[in-house]
């Protein structure tokens, strides 16, 4: 069931534009009158202690807050850590979240922490590992799981499948939703010299739970999905292309540092709303 959908078949009301809640900009987020959807890094929430300052007020307003995991390592060869799965499930309950999200990536192997989200090879073997880990995770989760493919600066030599086939197969076999990061789509296609629309056309867009929109910057010939720069016009154009094909129920600005003045954040949120055809949430 996509977010916003209600049991009983009533027409789902889309969430529209949201943004990633971060403590550094909590005051800005709290001041957005039209906000109905935000995302919080799951690992920053204690499932039983006090919620981060500012989050309770958002929940009281009825804003849907989605926990976004970054440390589960669903793409790892070894089974996911049951304690991390339990944490994600507890946070989802705590926030009464409509869904949770995690990455198709690995962050540790053989007990060694990478500290980054690392891409997994697009092979049958890797798909089996991801599918098993997603099954272990969703078995414990009270709500649906959305999977986010990551931006990768390189491809593994043993890739057997195209990105679209790889993702579609994972979604089909797990029943999970897709968290599509258009900035990643843009970054990957630009760095690989491909057309991002080709990927959009091949993905099961009806499975998109929500969309990340973020900024990036070019560095030594490669485009980096930094989350600390402004959203480039090409990414906004991709949002428009995506919404023309199948508009997702929610899109959100993902900013993780180097936060700009409030007016610039407002302008970015408005630009995303305009590109997607959703109402502005800033006034």
């Amino acid at each position, binding site marked *: 069931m996509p977010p916003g959908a209600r049991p009983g078949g009533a027409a789902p009301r889309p969430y529209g534009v949201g943004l990633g809640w971060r*403590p*550094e900009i909590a*005051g800005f987020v709290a001041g957005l009158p039209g906000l109905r959807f935000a995302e919080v890094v799951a690992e920053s929430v204690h499932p039983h202690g006090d919620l981060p*300052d*500012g989050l309770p007020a958002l929940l009281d307003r009825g804003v849907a807050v989605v926990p976004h995991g970054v440390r589960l390592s669903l793409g790892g060869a070894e089974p996911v850590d049951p304690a991390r799965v339990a944490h994600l499930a507890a946070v989802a309950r705590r926030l009464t979240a409509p869904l949770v999200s995690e990455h198709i990536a690995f962050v540790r192997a053989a007990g060694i922490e990478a500290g980054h989200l690392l891409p997994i090879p697009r092979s049958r073997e890797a798909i089996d590992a991801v599918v098993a880990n997603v099954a272990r995770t969703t078995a414990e989760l009270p709500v649906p799981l959305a999977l986010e493919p990551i931006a990768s600066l390189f491809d593994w030599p043993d890739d057997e499948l195209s990105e679209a086939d790889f993702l579609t197969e994972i979604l089909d076999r797990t029943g999970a939703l897709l968290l599509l990061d258009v900035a990643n789509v843009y970054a990957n296609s630009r760095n690989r010299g491909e057309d991002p629309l080709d990927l959009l056309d091949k993905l099961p867009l009806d499975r998109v739970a929500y969309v990340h929109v973020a900024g990036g910057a070019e560095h030594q010939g490669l485009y980096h999905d930094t989350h600390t720069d402004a959203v480039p016009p090409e990414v906004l154009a991709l949002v428009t292309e995506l919404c023309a094909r199948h508009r997702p129920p929610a899109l959100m600005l993902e900013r993780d540092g180097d936060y700009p*003045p409030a007016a610039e954040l407002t302008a970015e949120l408005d630009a995303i709303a305009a590109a997607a055809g959703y109402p502005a949430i800033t006034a």
Partner: protein
Amino acid sequence: MQDTWGIPGPTFIVGYVIALIAVAVLAAAHRKVLFRGDKNARVDDLGPQQVAYLNGGDRLAVYSSIGGLRAAGALGTSGSALVQTGPVPAGVTPLDSAIHHAASGRIRTRDLIGEQWVRSALDDLRGGLERRGLAVSSEALKQARLWALAAGALALIGILRLIDGARNNKPVGFLFVAVVVVVFLTWRLARTRRIATGAATSRMRELRERHGYLSPAQSPSYATYGAAGAALGVALFGAAALYELDPAFAAEAEIQRAAAHGFAGGSSGSSSSCGSSSSCGSGSSCGGGGGCGGGGCGG
């Protein structure tokens, strides 16, 4: 052996301790009334510098202004002196203008409070807050400190009795303890300091909760919140917020991180008054030693 001053030791110590408790309780009660302020006073319409004054006095008001001017790009440092780095922003307060003007002559942060224009802007700021029942007036402070006279007189009596009692070869242990307590009480009452009234202090707590996103614990993005957010962050959460905003600048400008620690600030004065009344606790333990057979008693 004759009783010192014709009063038996146990009688004197009991009377002395009762007098001590009476002074402490009356002083505390009087302060509560003096520092109560206007219960209906509002703080919603206060500017950051007024909030800063209530929270940490002149120094935090200056720091808050510096924070706002820095975030607006109007202030920098050269060596450890403040210098102008841009025009004075539109719509600033008299304190902002005074500090910005003072920076044209390269001034150190700690000398700002004594600078003529800054001093006068701070006095105006305090005057306005006093009239609204948010800041404690110097008149009320003077009245509160008068209680030190009562405590001081009690200390003097105790010391004289201590001397005479010792000369008389009477036990003076309990009296000595009571005198120490009275001297401490006198000292606390004489240096009574208080900036915000009780009403202002509780309103400020609400403000701090409402603007919790500006707390240094949140690593707030001052670029997002702007100059007003920076000034309010310093006002509510102390100089630590200035280090969060711009560590290099704050260090060069010799901002004293511990100067106003947000949460302590204005309330420290009042809590010390509770301290003095709780010192009666130790006085009553003296009283407990009423049956002073062979032990040390009231001379």
